[in-house]
């Protein structure tokens, strides 16, 4: 064993070496460490390793836009007056001067026109809210498509779903605060939804509004929900979400050197601190640009809320668009009268039943999948969407349902922009909302399975070089070259799917097995999920294929040694991932 001499001390001094005096930063750090014990806490966390992939940063967009929301929101509270007291507007906006309105509307106009930077802050707050919820959804899709919600992360998935729900409610309460014509229409709709609840509806409405709509309490109540209650819960849940992330460690894509036991990536300090910090400024920058350049919620054009008025293009913000769309395509005559009480199915189904049902489906997904597979192992390596065709297809079907309902929410805008008839769009959507998800499911699943086949082709027969050769007999064939060991490892780093089957529902004595009914259902679902999947090739198949390929190459080349691929040097793919196995 050789000794690395560069590490050996070069001096011959006889006295003990003493630490040099620490610099100002070092002494400050020791001061803090002596009192707070930071070193112990930080030692581990500053070196915490995170894997590097763009899709792991989607949740970060949500986090940073939430920070922007807190910052701009605090600014707005300094001037906003959540009161329904009646005042006459006397501010700078000419077209509304002398008009009676609530104090909350007047203070919103004051922030917009008479507070320096107020309009920018208002618009940034609103854009940040739109981006906050959008990024949560994109993050949710990433987690679902890669199977990151499997054990041990099911509860973090549930927290995420609740964050999405709370974010939506937070957005709705904030949107309602200015008490302008558009948001007032929204609050009126919410009142209608409450009242559509059988039996309890009217009571709930009177409780919320402190009497008959609109009353004088709704804005102050929504305000305290918006600035204290929901943000408090959001903060707590975000903290829990991130603590669980640290505890579970981040998932990673499979590849050489990446296992279920390690995380391959870069440490928090200095790499991820810089990346995440930089990303915060980018999110802030994009939101600031949007707030500065793009108009959002111009309340001065809407004017104060007045129940006798309504405007075309009265839509909620985008995240409430899909229940609104369901409401728009629901046949309006669906009502039944029971003992003199009207049950408004036309409101009940699209607003009070389907959205909570969708949320439940979302929350249940990881548990349902866990039950069907019976998989109790921890999973830290992600799955490519193609390798879970049924799950991917289910998510795409849900997305299609969401997307169609969402588009239906903008049916009037689609009608005028595409010169279509709003009636025809509505009729189309009524059918598409049922048929669309089925078609999407089928296409996605077949697509995934085709991609799996393609992966197997690459493993067994190599990648397509694009080089066409002609044999002596005149036969044309495309030359395939083997993929690199790294690629082959990555492609095969997945489990074989096991279809669960019930051996028999009765034992030898003819006694029914316990839970046989649910077990049979589980077996049926398992075969529904997995029976069409393409499994990765076995070792024997791979060896057979490689042997075959070598033989083939030998024959085709007409040479007395196997082709190593160098004949095609000028045409070879330059991608480092695709270096042929047999480079010698």
């Amino acid at each position, binding site marked *: 064993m050789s000794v690395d001499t560069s590490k050996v001390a070069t001096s011959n001094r006889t006295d003990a070496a003493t630490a040099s005096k620490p610099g100002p930063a070092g002494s400050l750090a020791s001061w803090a460490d002596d009192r707070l014990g930071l070193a112990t806490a930080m030692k581990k966390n500053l070196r915490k390793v995170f894997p590097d992939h763009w899709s792991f940063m989607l949740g970060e967009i949500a986090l940073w836009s939430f920070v922007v929301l807190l910052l701009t929101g605090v600014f707005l509270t300094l001037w906003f007056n959540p009161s329904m007291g009646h005042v006459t507007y006397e501010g700078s906006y000419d077209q509304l001067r002398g008009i009676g309105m609530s104090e909350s509307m007047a203070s919103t106009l004051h922030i*917009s026109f008479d507070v320096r930077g107020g309009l920018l802050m208002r618009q940034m707050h609103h854009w940040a809210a739109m981006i906050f919820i959008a990024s949560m959804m994109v993050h949710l899709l990433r987690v679902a498509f890669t199977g990151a919600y499997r054990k041990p992360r099911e509860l973090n998935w549930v927290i995420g779903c609740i964050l999405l729900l709370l974010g939506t409610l937070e957005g709705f309460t904030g949107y309602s605060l200015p008490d302008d014509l558009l948001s007032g229409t929204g609050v009126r709709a919410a009142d209608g939804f409450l009242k559509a609840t059988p039996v309890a509806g009217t009571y709930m409405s009177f409780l919320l509004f402190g009497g008959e709509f609109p009353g004088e309490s709704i804005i102050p109540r929504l305000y305290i929900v918006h600035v204290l209650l929901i943000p408090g819960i959001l903060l707590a849940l975000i903290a829990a979400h991130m603590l669980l992330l640290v505890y579970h460690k981040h998932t990673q894509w499979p590849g050489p050197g990446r296992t279920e036991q390690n995380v391959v990536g870069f440490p928090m300090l200095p790499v991820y601190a810089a990346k995440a910090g930089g990303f915060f400024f980018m999110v802030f920058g994009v939101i600031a640009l949007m707030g500065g350049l793009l108009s959002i919620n*111009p309340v001065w054009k809407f004017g104060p809320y007045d129940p006798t008025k309504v405007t075309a293009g009265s839509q909620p913000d985008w995240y409430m668009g899909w229940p609104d769309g369901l409401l728009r395509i629901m046949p309006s005559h669906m009502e039944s009268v029971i003992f003199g009480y009207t049950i408004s199915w036309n409101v009940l189904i699209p607003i009070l039943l389907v959205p909570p049902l969708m949320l439940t489906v979302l929350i249940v997904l990881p548990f349902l999948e866990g039950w069907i597979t019976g998989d109790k192992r921890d999973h830290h390596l992600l799955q490519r969407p193609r390798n879970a065709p049924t799950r991917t297809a289910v998510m795409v079907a849900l997305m299609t349902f969401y997307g169609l309902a969402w588009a239906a929410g903008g049916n009037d805008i689609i009608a005028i922009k595409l010169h279509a008839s*709003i009636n025809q769009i509505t009729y189309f959507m009524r059918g598409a909302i049922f048929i669309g998800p089925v078609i999407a499911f089928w296409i996605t699943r077949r697509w995934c399975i085709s991609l799996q086949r393609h992966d197997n082709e690459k493993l067994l027969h190599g990648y397509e070089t694009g080089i066409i050769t002609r044999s002596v007999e005149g036969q044309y064939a495309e030359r395939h070259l083997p993929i690199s060991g790294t690629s082959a490892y990555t492609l095969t780093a997945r489990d074989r799917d096991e279809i669960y089957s019930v051996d028999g529902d009765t034992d030898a004595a003819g006694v029914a097995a316990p839970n046989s009914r649910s077990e049979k259902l589980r077996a049926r679902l398992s075969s529904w999920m997995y029976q069409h999947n393409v499994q990765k090739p076995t070792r024997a198949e791979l060896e057979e294929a490689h042997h075959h390929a070598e033989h083939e190459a030998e024959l085709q080349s007409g040479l007395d040694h196997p082709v190593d691929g160098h004949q095609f040097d000028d045409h070879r793919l330059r991608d480092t991932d695709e270096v042929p196995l047999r480079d010698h």
Partner: protein
Amino acid sequence: MRVLNRTAGRLSRHRRGPLAGLAVLLLGLLISGSLYTVFAPAQATSQASETEQVAQGKELFLASCAFCHGKNGEGVPTVRDGYQIGPSLVGVGAAAVDFQVGTGRMPMASPGAQAPRKKVAFNDEEVAALAAYVASLGPGPAIPSQSDYSIEGLSEEERQEAISRGGQIFLTNCTACHNFNGAGGAMPRGGYAPTLHGVEGKYIYEALLTGPQNMPNFSNGNLSPEEKRDVIAYLDSIQDTPEYAGFTLGGLGPVSEGMFAWLVGIGGLVGAAVWIASHTTRSKKSKVNA
């Protein structure tokens, strides 16, 4: 060319002569006078009597309108009861003609859910003749005059009041179809309430008076002439006011805002995430896989 130059040279010698100024003045008057006679509105040159105008209008009507509205403007019913190819024009008044023909909506290019605004088919004289003819069919609203729909004559304070009052009337009566910004909205079966941006005050006033297509009729008992004027004043004022908040994204409300949140916001930020993730720490120039 040389001849021209020579002429110009000869003329140029006189350019500082005592009569040059007078000659240029006379030439200018001559040119502007003859241009005026060529391009002046019809009324200025030929003060056609009302009967002549109606007769001219009838001729135009028979050629361009009678196919749908009938030879005497009585309307043409279809085979289906209660439906018509073109409605009766008796009593719609000159204002209706001035609106429909003056904005190019009539004659329609093809029957459909909406008569869209398009290139105007007739000149001012012909529109006036058609209006006179249709007005002669039965009493109806006349074409409003400038003073009806303009707040020019009011004091500064009165104008301010007119605008804010007009805004409230607009929000109560018009935004349900035309949208809070006057950007327009959808109507059943492929129809739409058109945008009000850049529409002349006269046409808005006439539309209020006559209720074209899907639009309800705002009679003077419903919205007084002053109230109509105030609505127009408000619409003018929001178009003259700078957009304080930046690009309006079509002024269509939350749908276009949501689209921008996704395309610009999420699109841009996912792009930023891809960029950050692909630029990783490394000591070598080539990319390392971590």
